[in-house]
């Protein structure tokens, strides 16, 4: 007569326990992820940095640039996300005071700006990766250049309507520790960010 557990019984018990724990883990993991998002997404300091950068860009030619470029999307092209830099001659006149200021606050470690993106306010097509004709696009092509952290941030943004969004990725680096922060503001058609 056998006594104690046999291997199969042990495995069944362990599997049951593991499944239960995985369910608990997935429940609490959501809470942990939300907490981290609260820390790194739309922090007031980074929101105001974004505001001032947007203000600088809007006082130059960025609005016409994004309006022209993003409006020209077609099936072969996916300009649903546009990266803007201080070196962009369509936005800044080369050598102008505004460009120098932009470079000194954006292109240095000072404001910790890593990337500046503009996109449509309605992020549905971008996150679903659809072009203007509704065709599903290649996700890698549409979100090309975006880090996983940035894609995760994009997925938290909601809302539909006209206009654009500015999304800025900040890199806070202390020693070897890197932390990415994200902030975004809406850019109404022809208006200021809010």
């Amino acid at each position, binding site marked *: *007569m*056998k*006594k*104690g*557990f*046999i*291997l199969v019984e*042990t*495995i069944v018990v*362990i599997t049951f*326990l*593991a499944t239960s*724990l*995985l369910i*608990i*883990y997935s429940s*609490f993991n959501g*809470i*942990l992820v939300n*907490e981290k998002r609260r*820390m790194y997404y739309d*922090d*007031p*300091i980074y929101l*105001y*940095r974004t*505001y*001032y950068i947007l*203000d*600088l860009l809007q006082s130059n030619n960025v609005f016409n640039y994004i309006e022209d470029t993003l409006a020209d999307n077609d099936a072969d092209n996916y300009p649903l996300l546009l990266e803007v830099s201080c070196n962009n001659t369509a936005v800044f006149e080369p050598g102008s*005071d*505004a460009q*120098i*200021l932009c470079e*000194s*606050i954006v292109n240095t470690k*000072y*404001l910790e700006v890593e990337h500046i993106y503009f996109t449509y306010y309605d992020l549905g097509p971008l996150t679903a990766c659809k072009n203007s004709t509704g065709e599903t696009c290649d996700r890698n092509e549409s979100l090309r250049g975006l880090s996983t952290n940035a894609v995760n941030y994009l997925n938290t943004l909601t809302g539909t309507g006209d206009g654009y969004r500015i999304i800025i990725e900040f890199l806070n680096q*202390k*020693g*070897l*520790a890197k932390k990415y922060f994200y902030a975004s503001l809406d850019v109404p058609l022809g208006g200021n960010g809010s």
Partner: protein
Amino acid sequence: MKSKGMTMVELIVSVGLISIVMVFVFNILVDMRQEETNSSFKSQDLINRSLIIRTIQKDFINKKLYTINECLLEQEDDIVCLNFVFRDNSTATLKIAKNTVEYNGEKWTLQTGSYDIKNEDYKYCYNYVEKGKFYYVTLMFYVNLRGHVLESNVLLDLELFNTGLVSDVCLPGTSRTDCGNILKLNNTTNLCDSYRSQDEETTNN
């Protein structure tokens, strides 16, 4: 021969599976404990921090900053006292003490221990760069949480940023000569950078 209990192989497999599960459980418990401790302390402070930044930045944006003067520290615990003058000639005073931040009559108390600035020589740092006809200025107020349970996890530092046309402001360090009698802020040369360097060295060590 009758088999009794588990064999060695069964035992090893069982212990291995249990160990894997325990590693997951342990990680969850550690994370949960940290987050729970942090959230109970920091929630109110984070809300206050947002309100402070929003209130001051709103004035910077709507009223347009004209100049910044240092004012006298009245209380023993006061660390910083700054007087902002706006272009409509209105003024607002920012006072930071060990446990409180006061701006224009509104007062916020920090719940998370003390609001000690790390080093008295760096009560705040002030960066000013004039580029052509533009300026940018940043006031940073660092919060020292060393030795506190929240040391590495909380962002309670205050940052006030402003940029615009040099012709619109009268800030210390500008090349304008018509600013009148403006009290010079102490330590105005790239303190943020030197402070950050110091902080990075500390982190690396």
